């Protein structure tokens, strides 16, 4: 944007010297340089390291100084030929899809609720959302873990089913994990959507009402199209977040989940890398995750751009 603006000014004022033009066109790059350096150091370096490691043999001996031989794509071949990897991949995609869908639907519903509420209740709901959002994932998961604890949990006490485990069964494990992930994801969706909703001109909605449109029609033809770009971006973000979910799964596995039945890609990569000391294979899994995330993101961004063109 900045580049476009300066270029435009340049065209509007022909008598500027060549030197000045060059300096002013360099300025934006200078300004953006610190951010690029920080991003490069924080994200770029680990990424490059990850990439090289996925092409090497890299185990515990290499961590402590032995040379790491290059093995080409052997690590990728190893995971792609492993049926368990595909199980985990599909499990992760399904978990991601369910969580994103639930988060988006509930988040938008709460945003609509926020708009409909009176001042005092809106404040109350907002404050509750903020608290849920502000809680670190680890803390939240431990609290939920206790609520669903086998022996001492509030939920088991209320249902009078003490001693029955929520963790040991795959389905109930992911049910609780979904509750935690969705619970933590809703506030951001709700607030952002609410902000978008407040930008819709009220006269449009009033006009629609005057023309006899009910809530459903108003939502379909006015509200939804207006917030659609925001919802697309939110969905893209949620997909990224829920695809990489780690803390919740890892902590709940320690509470008693069957590790093999409940691994998602993020935890799987961690267990291979840090648990089994196969940093090479773990890096390959992480690279595959990265590629999938990138694919999902690009798909959403393209959808969004098309939307704009219509």
């Amino acid at each position: 944007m900045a580049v476009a603006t300066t270029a435009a000014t340049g065209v509007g004022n022909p008598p500027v010297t060549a030197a000045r033009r060059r300096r002013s066109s360099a300025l934006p790059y200078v300004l953006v340089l610190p951010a690029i350096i920080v991003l490069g150091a924080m994200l770029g370096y680990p990424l490059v390291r990850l990439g090289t490691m996925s092409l090497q043999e890299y185990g515990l001996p290499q961590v402590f100084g032995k040379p790491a031989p290059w093995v080409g794509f052997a690590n990728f071949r190893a995971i792609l030929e492993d049926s368990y990897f595909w199980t985990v991949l599909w499990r992760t995609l399904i978990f991601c899809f369910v969580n994103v869908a639930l988060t988006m639907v509930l988040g938008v519903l709460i945003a609509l609720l926020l708009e409909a509420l009176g001042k005092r209740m809106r404040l109350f709901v907002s404050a509750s959302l903020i608290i849920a959002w502000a809680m670190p994932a680890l803390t939240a998961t431990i609290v939920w873990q206790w609520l669903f604890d086998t022996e001492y949990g509030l939920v088991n006490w209320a249902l009078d089913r003490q001693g029955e485990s929520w963790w040991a069964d795959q389905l109930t494990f992911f049910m609780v994990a979904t509750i935690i992930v969705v619970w933590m994801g809703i506030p951001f969706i709700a607030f952002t959507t609410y902000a978008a909703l407040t930008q819709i001109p009220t006269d449009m909605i009033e006009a629609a009402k005057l023309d006899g449109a009910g809530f459903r029609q108003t939502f379909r033809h006015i509200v939804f199209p207006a917030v659609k770009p925001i919802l697309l971006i939110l969905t893209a973000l949620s997909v990224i977040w829920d695809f990489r979910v780690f803390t919740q799964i890892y902590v709940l596995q320690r509470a008693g989940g069957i590790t093999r039945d409940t691994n998602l890609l993020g935890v799987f990569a961690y267990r291979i890398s840090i648990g089994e000391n196969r940093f090479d294979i773990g890096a390959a899994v992480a690279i595959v995750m990265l590629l999938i995330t990138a694919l999902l993101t690009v798909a959403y961004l393209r959808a969004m751009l098309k939307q704009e063109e219509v």
Partner: protein
Amino acid sequence: MNRTRPVRFLALLATAGLLVAACGDDDDDTAGTDAPSGTEAPAGTEAPAGTDAPAGTEAPAGTEAPAAETTVPPPPTNPPPQELGTGTGEGGTIRLWLNGEADTPDAMVEYAVAEFNKVHPDVKVVLERQQWTGIVERQTTALSGSDAPDLVEFGNTQAQAFEAAGALIDLTDRAADLGGDDFLQSLLEAGTYDGELYAAPYYAGARIMIYRKDLFEASGIEVPTTLEEMVAAGQQLMEDNADVANFSGIYLPARNWHAVMSFIWEHGGDIATQEGDQWVGQLDSPESIAGFEFFKNAFDTANAAPADGDDATDWLAFCAGEVGMMPAPGWKPGQIINPDDGCPDMEANIGVFAMPGLEAGSTAPVFLGGSNLGIPTNSENQDLAYDLLKVMVSSGFQKQFAENGTIPALKSELANVAGSDAAVAQATAAENSRFVPTSEKWAGVEAANVLQDMLTQIAQGDDIAEVTAQADAAIEDTLNG
């Protein structure tokens, strides 16, 4: 149309940037959450060159922080580092990593540091106690960094991986100076890789049965002499204490695999055996399955602990009066009567016996636990650490293990194990002890929770033949991979 395209492209770039930034922020959050957990911070913040690549994209080792293995709130976290002794710190500071809540009692560490300070009055010693849960991951991170601790305790099943990787300095030349032939053979083996000694034996522990004398008396039960009698006694206690919520005749949370393995070994089964250069899983052998069926019966009829629980908080259950008897390491009575979160009043009611075998008069094979001490290659104070190590394997120090009911690493101190009931029971149990497969890849089996998960499934009533075959496959995969 043409004019809007560049703008659109910029918008795309900006969005992509935002997404990347969002990912980055999230990682920061994760790292942030682990800060409050005391000594976890070093592991989380070190980001050593060797391991940071996987950590960079995935939630990093920092999330390890909770070690929230427990089923009883609040979850145990690593206590904050303690500065011990009288060292001024002018001559440097060395960091000592010991595992568990009370495996090495505070008084013993204080003794060791005091002895160390006699030689090095200007060196400060910082003790950092680490939870056993997740210890391998934390040690991997910490030892590969430039800020490695200087003297580190390793579980004897876990030491091999670090020795094989070159994470520890070679102590072979100084082995005679440390203890030489006086060291217990099985611990020496755990500390030796490829003929070289990397980790000095520290202590051993055999599992024993701890029981409530008063409850046994009230139910008119004698100390059992066979496994069948033991389970029957557990059932009797369940019946007689039915009014106590969560009461277990035999406290047997399924994920306590160290204890459950006794049943399998006593029935003739095993975890895995080596045939040629290949490991072959034995968990689905008929003998092992008979052992698991025995466990399942005991779990169902004499126990109230959950299928998804482990022994991380067993002393709290014991103190709450919910336990008739339980398998536990020899130092457990000390933890039960510790004044901080234990119950000193219980002392008179604690009895111990060695877990009996199927035949009267025999004992069941027990898991031989234990620890070794090693000096990380990345420690900056290796000579100072060696001097502290020397104190901790000295007879003056090891004698106190014996007095605390722990089997010392020195054979010459074994005679002192006659001190307490627990120690005697333990020494009896240790005569018939077993170990996990000795492979540097065994740590991977533990990290993947293979045995724990299998036991949870068995306890829940899954098909034993099926889940044991699964576990065998996973173990063979890791050990032979």
